[in-house]
């Protein structure tokens, strides 16, 4: 990309200095001339493949004597067996804390912390990520430990028990905050309690996970052909490559087939779910399924989101509910894309003034309806597109961020020129496109509404939100989960 897309403004200071003392400020920004050209070149990491097939992304960063390495391995909670929900999350923790064949987790802790270095891992729905960082002088040792953890994790039983106990405690505590409870219920209702996307770990499912399951998960997904590594910092590509070849050389070439996850079925049917909780605000999440990854509507939806609820205070939801009416501290939402073959979600969430709760949700609906029925204004679409285009440069602010962005795009199957074409794709979106996206990807009839709050404090009962109301008993859910 070049800089033509960035608004221009001239430094007039030298010319005008002394000309006027008070007029410098006390002007409207539109009275400023065009800004200077912004010189920006898209920075791209180098790529190379190790002898055993590990794909590497590299970006030099000589500013500070630091190095960092990130590993991404496909396979996550979407792929865990139904009776063992929570396996992947436990795996992500104990991969690091359980140590390696040679070293216990405690020994690794002691060594890393003394060096002011760190290695941390976690497993999400799609993949495991493992992030390592140290001072430059400790790079050699850092990658030795990293490789050992990736190739030879031991999953010692005491650390499995520790991680499980910690998870059980967070399950007890996941009912403490009303907005989180609403989110949890929304995910379950949106995706279905049995779907890999909507199911959640319970004490029983977590108890069912044994050390052998973690070893099996490792055997299944951890192989050179399924690992991508990103390296950045005060080190040359040659040095980095040599060090990585050395530490991973004992790992034999192997590829992995990631199992297909059954496609999502839309379950949203306009139901209102109400969970009573004694809390000062009305907590709400509403929505239905979103668009697929690489959908042809991706950029139309991005612009629409910015105008509806993604663009902070310039977005309609925030402007109307917070700024004009004082009904909430914040409201965000929009239609997200899926990852891989999956669909994302259309969702809006907020914590609303209880005695105007139903009024506020009706207002959200009318804002959506308006975006479906009428074109957005010229100013709105210009601001949304300018914002997306001109802030693009911030995707390249930090080297580590550039690296992980490219790795993630590659892993998720985006084309290599995705970022090069990004700005032109945003610029091509029209007002008609925004309206079409609003009509096609948001459906008020289908949308489910999950409410957590105290209906006695509401302006009107949840039933007046339309649709059938289903009550959810939080206490019963909590009791059902209690560890026996």
């Amino acid at each position: 990309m070049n800089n033509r897309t960035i608004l221009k403004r001239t430094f007039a200071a030298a010319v005008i200095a002394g000309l006027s003392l008070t007029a410098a400020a006390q002007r409207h920004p539109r009275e400023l001339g065009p800004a200077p050209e912004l010189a920006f070149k898209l920075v791209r990491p180098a790529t190379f493949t190790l002898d055993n097939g590990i794909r590497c992304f590299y970006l030099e960063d000589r500013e500070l004597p630091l190095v960092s390495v990130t590993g991404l391995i496909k396979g996550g909670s979407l792929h865990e067996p139904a009776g063992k929900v929570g396996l992947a999350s436990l795996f992500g923790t104990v991969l690091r804390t359980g140590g390696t064949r040679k070293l216990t987790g405690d020994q690794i802790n002691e060594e890393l912390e003394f060096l002011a270095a760190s290695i941390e891992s976690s497993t999400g729905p799609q993949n495991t990520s493992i992030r390592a960082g140290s001072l430059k002088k400790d790079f050699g040792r850092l990658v030795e430990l990293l490789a050992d953890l990736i190739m030879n994790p031991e999953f010692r039983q005491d650390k499995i028990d520790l991680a499980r106990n910690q998870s059980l405690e967070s399950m007890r505590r996941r009912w403490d905050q009303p907005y989180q409870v609403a989110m949890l219920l929304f995910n379950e209702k949106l995706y279905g309690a049995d779907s890999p996307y909507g199911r959640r770990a319970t004490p029983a499912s977590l108890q069912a996970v044994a050390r052998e399951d973690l070893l099996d998960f490792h055997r299944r997904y951890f192989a050179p052909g399924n690992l991508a590594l990103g390296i950045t910092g005060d080190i040359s590509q040659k040095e980095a490559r040599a060090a990585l070849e050395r530490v991973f050389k004992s790992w034999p070439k192997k590829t992995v087939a990631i199992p297909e996850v059954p496609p999502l079925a839309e379950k949203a049917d306009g139901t209102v779910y109400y969970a009573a909780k004694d809390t000062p605000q009305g907590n709400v999440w509403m929505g239905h399924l979103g668009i697929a990854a690489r959908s042809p509507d991706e950029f139309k939806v991005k612009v629409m989101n910015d105008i509806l609820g993604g663009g902070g205070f310039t977005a309609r939801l925030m402007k109307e509910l917070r700024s004009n009416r004082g009904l909430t501290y914040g409201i965000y939402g929009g239609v997200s894309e899926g990852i891989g073959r999956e669909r994302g979600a259309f969702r809006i969430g907020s914590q609303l003034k209880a005695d105007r709760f139903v009024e506020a949700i009706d207002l959200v609906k009318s804002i959506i309806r308006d975006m479906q029925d009428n074109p957005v204004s010229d100013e709105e679409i210009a601001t949304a597109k300018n914002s997306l285009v001109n802030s693009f440069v911030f995707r390249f602010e930090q080297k580590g961020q550039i690296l992980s962005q490219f790795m993630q795009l590659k892993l998720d199957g985006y084309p290599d020129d995705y970022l090069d074409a990004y700005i032109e794709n945003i610029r091509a979106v029209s007002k008609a496109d925004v309206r079409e996206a609003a009509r096609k990807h948001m459906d008020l009839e289908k949308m489910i509404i999950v409410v957590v709050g105290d209906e006695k404090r509401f302006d009107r009962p949840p039933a007046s939100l339309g649709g059938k109301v289903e009550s959810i008993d939080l206490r019963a859910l909590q009791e059902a989960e209690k560890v026996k």
Partner: protein
Amino acid sequence: MKKPGNPLRFGTLALILVLGLGPLAGQNLEDKVHARTLKNGLTVLLIERHGAPVFSTVYGFKVGSVDEVAGITGTAHLFEHMAFKGTPKIGTSDFEKEKPIMEDVDRVGREWSLELAKGERADKAKLARLREELTALEAGQSKFIVKDEIDVIYSNVGGVGLNAGTGTDQTLYMISLPSNQLELFCLVESERIRNAVLREFYTERSVIQEERKQTTDAVPTRLLSEMFMAAAFMAHPYGHPVVGWASDIHSVTLEEALAFKNRYYTPNNCVLAIAGDVDPAKAWPLVERYFGDIPRGEDPPVLRTVEPKQLGERRVRFEFDAEPLLMMGFHKPAFLTKEDAAASVLAYVLTSGRTSRLSKDLVQDKQIAVSISAGSGPGQRYPNLMTFSGVPRFPHTVEELEAAVLEHIEKVKAEPITDRELQKVKNNIGASYVRSMSSNMGLAMTLMRYQLLFGDWKLYLKYKDIVDGVTARDVMDFARTYLTPENRTVAVLVKKAKAD
């Protein structure tokens, strides 16, 4: 799309500064930082980092909730919200026509607020009449309002992270911009400092009432922390919450907010830091031209109240619909003292990382807790607290956790920490100084804070020397002197017994 649940703008800064011990190795920092104090007293730090063509800025006023008195708690934070409503040039289509309506809004709003403040004894009919009158006036004014124009201006040029935060000690305003937008930044922000217009005051007051419910009343850790601080400080204003007490947020007037602003929002009480791809030769003339003629103000008033020495343990026990939590704290001297540095080292040894004493013993071995962290709070300008926050693991109780933490504190009083522990802390602090220089906003915030609160950004470098000078003996002395039963405040949240 930005994910729902992102941190919202205008947050109150976290009450406890977790002791990551911020920053540094001095890596040529002195070559990168250019400092200048303008004639009106505004200190500006330009920090050169020529990576991506962007810069981040933060400016702070040395005013926070610690500068509030009873009745107007939350005003520093409230004004921070109002600073986004524009100026006579920004946020309006015709200021001359808007102005007289605003004056009526101010008059009716004040009358309404004062009546509201009577609580139960308020005249309901009068309240309704005034509210109606106010709504009509606001509707009239709204015809001239250009909504959230500061946001629109910055969004159009690609600005990100327009935000602000209020803490006990300071109020901060931030934005990051492409590097060709420095003049726009200077224009908008100098206008805002000079001439903020408090549009839509009563709507924003309502937003903050919701903010309080969302971020305190519905959040067990925050609610407990509020009660804990109120118990630990009897006299000093560190005892009241940054967001303010609900009654005060409910009734503070526009006039009071403006008076508060005029007292503290002066260039001589402000530091501006700009970090990133900036050329000092081009930046200084712009900074001088836009910010240089904001009139200097009077020095802000001196806070007289000193927290009396605590003479006995204070305890808070609080029942709520949530799992149990523990907070504990001990009064200690202010930041940049040797005692405070010893407390930082001790906090590190006790709870930082998996090899720290409490994490190893209480979280990993005995598994009494799922987390425990030591820190310092709620501010740095005045003597404050060394704090411990713990989350017990069922079936272990807050009482067990409290006893276990106290046992470790006794151990620190009895035996010096080891050489290896001390060295580990110092290694980590050294590395964190290096890491702190990898982000424009992080660097701008850190240096700005040292300059604003303590008068010299270079104290950031000196702080590392202070910590490097801490010995095992200093840590033991600190524990013996300050971590005593009579100097202790303990607050616990326990789960409410079932109502049915």
